[in-house]
């Protein structure tokens, strides 16, 4: 690809420049630091842009599902709406309750957003494009996303309000519960791909009996691991606190962890939620739907760059999130807990043992 060649040229020039200025070792170190910072900046910018336009997409999609038009006043087709929303949020007053722990009250949304952003470091966008191609990428994502719960608990506690505290307890219990099922589902994926590296997981899905016949999409993990896909995606919806599991912002039980938050602090929580939605969609596409692989091995499909296939798959999964919100009634809290502990966890454990046994038989399809 031309872009990759250009990027490699820029990197090489920058490296020689830095080494010429600061000497070979220090120059290389400083250059790596600067390069990584710039790349992180670019990625965070792209994710925040995606988050902003996901809110517009959500309002538009739900609008059309409810036979409305959705936002259409700011800019052509309402395309500038997210910017207007952002400006509104920034200029709103931030009210900090008296008796609140001020430092933690401000820190909590920052922690939530930081964690939502940090997980993106290992997400691959195409075979060559990944910020950190680490061996234990899947483990890293599980570890980082498991820290997201701190933003919620700290927000609930620092608000010095019983409602926020109870809401935080509920949200945290929900997230911790669904993390287990999610982890087991991912263990199945790493077992069949025999790797924790996300690029290798995609690579593993590109070969197989059907892929050799040109029917790539039948070789992806979604078919043999269909129950795990269901568990993973539903747990992902519950993890991100989206409808029908959105206890935190339900109108009927409005004691979410962020009741005391206003203005941009609340906005940051929202941004973290949407960034997590996009992350779960990316992971679903990478783990179960073959990442950047084209669904059929034909010249027409292969002509489209892999990155666009990945984006298309992610978009489909994202639309599912919005569709759920427009369609399903909210779960009752005890039923959320029952679904997580009594349905998903036993199901994932049984399927894990089943897949492990399958892989030991001569009929294993993952050799």
């Amino acid at each position: 690809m031309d872009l990759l060649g250009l990027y490699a040229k820029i990197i090489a020039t920058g490296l020689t420049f830095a080494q010429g200025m600061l000497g070979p070792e220090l120059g290389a170190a400083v250059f790596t630091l600067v390069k990584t910072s710039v790349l992180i900046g670019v990625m965070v910018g792209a994710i925040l842009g995606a988050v902003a336009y996901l809110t517009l997409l959500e309002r538009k999609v739900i609008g059309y599902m409810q036979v409305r038009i959705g936002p259409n006043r700011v800019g052509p087709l309402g395309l500038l709406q997210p910017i207007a929303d952002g400006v509104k949020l920034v200029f709103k007053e931030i009210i900090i309750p008296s008796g609140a722990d001020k430092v933690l009250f401000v820190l909590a949304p920052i922690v939530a957003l930081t964690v939502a952003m940090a997980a993106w470091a290992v997400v691959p966008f195409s075979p060559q494009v990944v910020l950190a191609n680490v061996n234990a990428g899947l483990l890293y994502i599980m570890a980082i996303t498991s820290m997201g719960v701190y933003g919620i608990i700290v927000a609930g506690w620092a608000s010095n309000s019983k409602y926020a505290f109870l809401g935080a307890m509920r949200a945290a219990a929900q997230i911790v519960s669904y993390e287990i099922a999610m982890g087991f589902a991912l263990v199945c994926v790493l077992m069949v791909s025999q790797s924790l590296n996300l690029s290798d997981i995609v690579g593993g899905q590109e070969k197989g009996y059907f892929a050799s016949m040109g029917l790539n999409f039948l070789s992806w993990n979604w078919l043999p691991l269909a129950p795990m896909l269901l568990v993973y995606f539903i747990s992902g919806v519950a993890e991100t606190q989206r409808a029908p599991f959105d206890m935190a912002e339900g109108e009927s039980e409005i004691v979410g962890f962020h009741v005391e938050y206003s203005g941009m602090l609340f906005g940051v929580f929202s941004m973290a939620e949407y960034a997590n939605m996009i992350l779960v969609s990316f992971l679903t596409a990478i783990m179960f739907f073959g990442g950047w692989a084209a669904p059929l091995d034909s010249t027409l499909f292969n002509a489209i760059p892999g990155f666009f296939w990945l984006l298309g798959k992610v978009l489909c999964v994202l639309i599912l999130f919005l569709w759920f919100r427009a369609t399903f009634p909210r779960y009752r809290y005890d039923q959320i807990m029952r679904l997580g502990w009594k349905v998903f966890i036993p199901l994932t454990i049984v399927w894990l043992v089943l897949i492990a046994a399958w892989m030991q038989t001569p009929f294993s399809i993952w050799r």
Partner: protein
Amino acid sequence: MNIEPIVFYILSTILLLAALRVITARNPVHAVLFLVLAFFTASGIWMLLRAEFLAIVLVLVYVGAVMVLFLFVVMMLDINLDRLREGFWSYLPLGAAVGVLMVVEMILVLGGKYFGLEHLPNPADPGAGYSNTKELGRILYTDYVYPFELAAVILLVAIVAAVALTLRGRKDRKHQDPSQQIAVKRADRVRLVSMPSEKKDN
């Protein structure tokens, strides 16, 4: 000049300050949050030692699960700081003994060259593509499979015991059984009575 020592010193400074604040913070919740920061920074130092599996699992298990439960408990306890300070002098001897023991242990490890520890060779540099996770998994499931499974069984027994200790069936709870709710037929709820329509009076 190598960049690794710089990262190490930054991380260890944060780690030491956070650990210090764990024991000096007045608010127990702040102390727990500083402990979380200490764990996270320690995992960064492990990452620097190329023990990426241990580093990630430290975050996954301790930061992501254990400390969350810890935080739950500390937040819900009604802790009176003055009452906590009361027994300071009576606990001091025990605390000091444990402290001295830890200092001695650290001297033994850090001053290893005076005690002949250098006879143990340093592990060879495994190179860039080395997967710590894979090696650990291989050893755990081959050479150490029995101790590993034994530990798993002990943990399982602990889980069962914890559930058995806290589970009590209350008679007056209004528990709903979803399988019964789903099995309900229309006839269980509604009875349709066929009646002839009546003529209006007047």
